[in-house]
């Protein structure tokens, strides 16, 4: 019995070890612990004894793109060159990625946002109000922005990562301004996007709030999944619309398609490969999918707008039977909040596909609206 216990504790020790990494600098006997993400793939948080490390992982080649060391007092840290120190909690942020504004809202940090991409793309009332009062600045494209314009605004910029650093990163670094690439948009799991709240929580030292929020939405999301499983039908569904001469439809492995499957339906483009979109001629879509029951995310606000763009849309069954749904009436709200509230997106889709046309009490949605 004793032998078994010793053996077990040995196994535990080994497994603990394998879950930890040794830091080479300073005291070699201090071990660090990786806070493993449940869904998100594109960042890692590692707790060291005297600081928290964030690793941003490039989703295309899975290598570490950037490392940051976060601590309340960074002056005493001895760090290797490739790790960038950040003093926490941060007081202000320039948020150019869009989805992070929703995350900051959930962390009650909207007022810390001092710079944005463009006021046209903002939903958040706090940010909009601050923009009106000249407390938030429009930056535009980071690559084109003048490094000087960040002085006095914020020392930290978050932007949507594309694998290459912004062209003015070097100049920004000389002004002591840091850029963090955000790859939440490359996460394949709906909860993976939401899990990025944990990264921002470290920056603002609000980890408890983030964890409890994330656990809450995870629970709700899973409940929605179970609900979807109880539905009997798998209605057919098309998505996207014409841009120019081509119909762009989310590909079979795309984020959008993933949501469609989870809500239980027969997504017509499920067999196509890739995570982007597939392009088809109008005639192809019409011939193959004219009789699909639902049409989700055409990207238009009204039937009139749809017809204005292309009068042939009128021949689709979904158009005739009023089964087109989209979030375009409040686009900015969707972009900011859908990533951090995936349970609501899923709930909307389940209602749309299975419930709303049978019982009108299910026709109130968080993000979506029926196109009339």
């Amino acid at each position: 019995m004793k032998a078994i216990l010793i053996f077990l504790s040995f196994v535990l020790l080994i497994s603990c070890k394998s879950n930890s990494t040794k830091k080479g600098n300073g005291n070699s006997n201090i071990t660090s612990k990786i806070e493993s993400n449940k869904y998100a793939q594109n960042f890692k948080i590692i707790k060291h004894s005297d600081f928290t490390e964030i690793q941003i992982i490039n989703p295309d080649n899975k290598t570490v793109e950037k490392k940051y060391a976060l601590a309340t007092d960074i002056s005493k840290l001895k760090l290797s060159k490739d790790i960038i120190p950040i003093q926490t909690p941060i007081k202000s942020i320039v948020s150019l990625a869009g989805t992070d504004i929703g995350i900051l809202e959930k962390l009650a940090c909207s007022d810390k946002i001092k710079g944005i991409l463009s006021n046209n793309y903002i939903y958040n009332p706090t940010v909009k109000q601050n923009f009106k009062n000249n407390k938030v600045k429009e930056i535009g494209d980071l690559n084109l922005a003048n490094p000087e314009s960040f002085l006095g605004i914020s020392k930290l910029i978050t932007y949507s990562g594309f694998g290459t650093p912004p062209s003015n990163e070097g100049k920004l670094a000389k002004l002591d301004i840091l850029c963090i690439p955000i790859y939440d948009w490359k996460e394949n799991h709906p909860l993976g996007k939401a899990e990025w709240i944990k990264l921002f929580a470290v920056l603002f030292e609000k980890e408890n709030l983030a964890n409890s929020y994330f656990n809450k939405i995870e629970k709700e999301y899973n409940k929605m999944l179970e609900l979807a499983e109880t539905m009997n039908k798998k209605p057919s569904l098309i998505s996207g619309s014409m841009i120019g001469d081509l119909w762009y439809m989310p590909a079979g492995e795309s984020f959008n398609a993933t949501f469609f499957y989870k809500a239980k339906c027969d997504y017509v483009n499920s067999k196509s490969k890739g995570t982007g979109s597939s392009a088809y001629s109008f005639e192809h879509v019409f011939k193959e999918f004219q009789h699909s029951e639902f049409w989700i995310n055409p990207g238009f606000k009204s039937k009139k707008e749809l017809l204005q763009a292309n009068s042939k849309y009128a021949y689709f069954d979904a158009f005739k039977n009023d089964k087109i749904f989209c979030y375009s009436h409040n686009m900015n709200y969707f972009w900011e909040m859908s990533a951090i509230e995936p349970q609501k997106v899923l709930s909307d889709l389940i209602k749309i596909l299975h419930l709303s046309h049978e019982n009108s009490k299910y026709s109130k949605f968080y993000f979506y609206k029926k196109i009339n």
Partner: protein
Amino acid sequence: MKISHRKIILFLTICLVFLSFLHLNNGKFNFDFGLIFKSIFNFNDSIQQEIIFREIRFPRTIIAIFAGAGLSIAGLLLQTFFNNPLAGPSVLGITSGSSLFVALSVLSGFELFSTDLGITFSALFGAFAFSLLILLFSYFVKSAVSLLLIGMMLASFTSAIIQILQLTTHANQLKVFTLWGFGSLQQISFNQLFFVSIVFLLGISLLTILIKPLNLLVLGEKQAQILGINISNFKFIIIGVSSLFAGLITAYCGPISFIGLAVPNICKQLFKTQNHLILILGSALIGALLLLICDLIVMYLEPNMLIPLNGITALIGSPIVVWIILKKF
């Protein structure tokens, strides 16, 4: 009209009829004339095949013919008018003028401006305004190449304005608007064809009074006047008719490049005449044929490769332009 000219025109007409049906049939040879006929004259909107013919293929074929013919005629008029073989609706910035005014009217948010009539009118107005601007410049620059450079500057100027407009407008208007960024034969619907045909035929009928002045303009403005043509009146009709074609096509297809520039030159080389009755007929036929061929190439490549129409017209058109420059400049 010489016998040989008649033969060529007859041959081109036969080709056009054949290619039109081929195009209408999506490039396949198994024609079903009964179905085509039914879809147009005895339409049943519950039969998918009929919808495909009536709403997708028929408008695309007809507008290909209109656009090819219209742009080529506009190019021919401009080339004779400015006595410049490199003139054309897109190089002189006239289509850009159309695009700009269409953009302005769509983005203005006024209901009236977003209707077919509103968009067509803005496109025609834009084309006419920019033609007049070019006409004005033509009094100050004597060199043919300088005028073309001014046209190109007008084009980049308008595209800059359009870009700025795109930055400052909301996403949804933008979506309707991006269609004007590139040439397409697939935007027009069956119902719009009637109106487009009427405007097109108006342009064609105006052409009849232009044949004689154009023939004399070949000798220069002064000679035309000495031979009894009141040139200051016809100046505006010529500019007006070429703007009408260029504007109409831009309103429904966006900017289609190279056709207006290349086709009149091919036509002159083929017919070897300065008789504008033949040149207009020939340019219209060759233009329609060329655009049908370009669009057929798009159709044939579609299963493997998605190439925009302007890609094909540029591939065919730009070598022709280089050939003209090598020959004449």
